[in-house]
């Protein structure tokens, strides 16, 4: 039983990272119907910026803050410089998805060119070797910090979306773009803000993942794909769904890794994707598809 709880808790800690990634993906999908394939690369870019600032002896809080803002700026830049010109030329939805893929490739190449492709260890104020024990269940300092920060981020994000005027504008834009424009909502700024926020969450996930893994230009690929799986599981157009999906995926993975086999652990996410899409494509908390000719 205590073994089960142990796996459960460590699953929650990874799951909260997946939830952050999934939240960013769902936020963008909900408001623009674009699957952001550059999400992982933006997060990697942000983490590398933090790494460079840290090696220039900046303080942790300052460099993390700058990295988060840079990540958001990169995403907004992409929105203004690439997506808007493409939309002016009537790019299809598929075309816009491919644009994010292309942007991801660009970022990936630049990161390996400037950041080096060797794995590096990421200095972090919380260590994953210092552990606390709660009645037999061991939690590392890093895992605890990750869970705390993700919960806080999700909570703040919830408050922003549900309780502020900006959140109202975001919800209106994702509900009905033309309607929102008619009501005088500056939809372009709101969408840019959504892109920025999504990247912010992505970089946050990257910063807390980097100390657990080694930092290299591809370190976010797998968590990003898992985040995708989580977003699908919860329903791509549902924000609470993304969080729930992330936590479920993390726990399921950890339990599968502990009780079935470690090798099976990584495949689970993709099996979940295929099963969910076959059985209930709209996800756990998503809305039904509607289609007209």
């Amino acid at each position: 039983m205590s073994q089960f709880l142990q796996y459960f808790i460590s699953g929650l800690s990874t799951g909260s990272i997946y939830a952050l990634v999934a939240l960013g993906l769902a936020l963008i999908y909900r408001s623009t119907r674009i699957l952001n394939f550059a999400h992982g690369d933006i997060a990697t870019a942000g983490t590398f910026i933090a790494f460079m600032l840290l090696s220039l002896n900046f303080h942790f809080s300052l460099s993390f803050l700058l990295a988060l803002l840079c990540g958001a700026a990169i995403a907004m830049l992409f929105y203004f410089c690439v997506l808007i010109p493409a939309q002016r030329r009537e790019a299809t939805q598929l075309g816009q998805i491919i644009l994010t893929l292309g942007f991801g490739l660009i970022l990936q190449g630049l990161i390996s060119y400037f950041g080096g492709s060797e794995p590096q260890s990421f200095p972090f104020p919380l260590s994953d070797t210092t552990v606390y024990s709660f009645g037999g269940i061991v939690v590392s300092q890093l895992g605890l910090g990750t869970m705390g920060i993700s919960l806080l981020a999700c909570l703040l994000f919830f408050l922003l979306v549900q309780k502020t005027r900006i959140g109202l504008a975001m919800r209106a834009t994702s509900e009905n773009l033309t309607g929102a424009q008619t009501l005088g909502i500056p939809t372009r700024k709101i969408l840019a803000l959504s892109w920025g926020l999504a990247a912010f969450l992505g970089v946050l996930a990257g910063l807390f993942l980097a100390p657990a893994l080694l930092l290299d230009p591809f370190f976010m690929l797998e968590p990003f794909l898992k985040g995708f799986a989580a977003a699908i599981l919860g329903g791509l157009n549902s924000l609470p769904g993304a969080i729930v999906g992330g936590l479920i995926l993390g726990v399921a993975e950890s339990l599968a890794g502990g009780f079935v086999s470690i090798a099976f652990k990584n495949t689970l996410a993709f099996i979940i994707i295929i099963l969910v899409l076959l059985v209930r494509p709209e996800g756990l908390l998503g809305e039904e598809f509607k289609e007209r000719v």
Partner: protein
Amino acid sequence: MDLIESYREELQLIRKPGTRVWVGAFVLLLILLPLFAPEHVIYVVTIIAIYTIGVQGQNLLIGNTGQISFGQAGFLAIGAFTFGHLNQWGVPWPFGLIAAGIAAGLFGIVVGFPSLRLKGPYLAIATMGFGIAVYQVFVNSETLSGGRMGLSVHKMQPLFGLSAINFNYYFNFAIALVFTLLTYNIISSYMGRAFIAIRDNDIAAEVIGVNLTRYKLLSFAISSFYTGIQGGLYGLFMGYLEPNMFTFMESINLFVAVIIGGLASVEGSIMGAAFVILVPQVFNAYKELVPVVYGVTILLVLIFEPMGLYGRWFKLRLYFRNWPFR
């Protein structure tokens, strides 16, 4: 712009005598290539020929039928390892190759089933999940992947007194040529028109009598058959196989080739295949920057020329045909 008066004319692959000359000259140039080109060039062109097959299949799926797939690396791996294992058991290459294609095609049908319910981005994710799952199965199973050293494949003995590299070149070129002709014929047949109808509007296609289930699955099966053949040929050419040849990046490579070459065009597929092979060769000194070149080209192509390289070429041709009038 071309006026087509009869169905026979529609079925013709080449409609103008001028085009016949051009295409003939191009094929002749490729046949005579080993006489004057250095070995390195022949090696690269051989790989392009192998790649052309997979990109054409992918283009039938993405460009003609409009179903996005990010799982090509999975089919590639299935085809390649089917071929590799059969080769190990001493099965002659024609059967091995066909078996590779059929194995990949059967998995294509399995992956095609979600496409009956899913559209656009959702389908992209489902196929992506498939591609990565296949990769991880191969990585984790030593019996399937042939262990740490990879699976070795017996290369072919050169025939007709040719050197090994020239023989491989002619062999792969001939197969690529056969598949190119096959693609042209698929596109101009009923099947090709059904694919295009599904891409343009699947509900409308079903209303006018296209069997949606059959043709969507067929499209997946054909495209993965092509990809499986590509995998088999690649294994035969390289002489060994390992799972790391078939990562998610490989799917992206094939996808990039289709997008940059031009959707729904066979010539575009060939150009796209040449592009994704040549760029890493040209930027050999700056390996890290290869994805940047891909990415920038994708952005430019999608914003300024949605028809891809083929579209640019087509417009250029049109310009010279009408010159000096516009």
